[in-house]
């Protein structure tokens, strides 16, 4: 790589650069990372009986709606990126960052270990988690207000996660 940057050019550019923010790239979510991790987790889960990740997004979605929070409010409350929260709720195969899972587990008052399993970051040894997760995901629909069945499904699943 041949760069002919004169002293004059450097001096001129330095004036513009001194206080500049220069970052470029896809906001917050590391697309390369998420693609790679999604692929890895998908391979792992293909070998397992059930993929719990759809239930993770559903859990967050229902809990948020139950609390009457908008996505940006939950992101703020949990101190996570809004873009990642959107990805969690909308992309059933998305594997969130462990830090994000930790922040959400803390906000929901649930075990970080169980949430890491549910989010696909850790393979669950306990098969009932996968089964319960799939059952839960199947019972809940994305609507504005929680219906009674969703409310019940959420309560039962939170109870199940809390007991383990």
């Amino acid at each position: 790589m041949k760069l002919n940057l004169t002293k004059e050019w450097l001096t001129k550019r330095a004036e513009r650069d001194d206080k500049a923010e220069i970052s470029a790239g896809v906001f917050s979510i590391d697309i390369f990372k998420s693609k790679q991790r999604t692929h890895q987790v998908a391979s792992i889960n293909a070998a397992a009986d059930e993929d719990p990740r759809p239930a993770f997004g559903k859990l967050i979605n229902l809990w948020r709606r139950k609390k009457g929070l908008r996505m940006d409010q939950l992101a703020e409350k949990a101190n996570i990126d809004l873009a990642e929260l959107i990805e969690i709720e909308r992309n059933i195969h998305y594997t969130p960052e462990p830090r994000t899972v930790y922040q959400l587990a803390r906000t929901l008052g649930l075990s970080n270990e169980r949430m890491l399993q549910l989010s696909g970051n850790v393979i669950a040894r306990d098969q009932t988690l996968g089964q319960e997760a799939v059952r839960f995901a199947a019972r809940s629909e994305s609507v504005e207000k929680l219906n009674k069945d969703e409310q019940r499904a959420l309560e039962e699943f939170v109870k199940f996660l809390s007991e383990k």
Partner: protein
Amino acid sequence: MSERTQVHLKDRRTGTLVEAILIDGVTEEEVQAAELTWKPFLEKEIRRMEAAGVPKERLPQHRHWDWRQKYDAIEGYAAYQMFAIECESEMQGMMLVSTAGKVCRVESQKGKSLVYVHFLAAAPWNLASIVTEPRFSLVGSILLATAIQLSIQEEFSGRIGLHSLPQADGWYAHDCGMTDLGCDATAHNLRYFEMTAEQASEFLK
């Protein structure tokens, strides 16, 4: 294969130009070394900023980037190249570009090939938004000049494109003279900027 070129950064502590190395083809060890120094520094500063009540939107927006993972993801793909600037034995900035798969959107050059800047960032201690006394400036300009030079080398006439993080929109629009094509719904609504051959030539003047 890794290629090294001498460049200069401005040491903001002394106001003088100091020698630095532009690395074309960053090695795994170099990426790892950068992560090992950038991450703890960034995390510490973010904790400090959060404790000081700095609003979330003013925290560094690239704080979750993992350069090691990016390196792993592109390894073996000829169209991707990773550059870095080293000074005082530390990485002062990194950039990941590709020379295939993206085409121009600006009407006058629509459909033509360009160099797409996937990621560009300076070390956290060089950012005025994080520290009160940044160490080096010129990291962004030299990396951008590198992308332009690569574009010329690839016979793309200096055409480059990128999605800027909101905190950097002004720099790409006003200080680099790139064309702002507005928010891109396919890229988390980040603004897409493109540089024409003429703008590239102007930037290098």
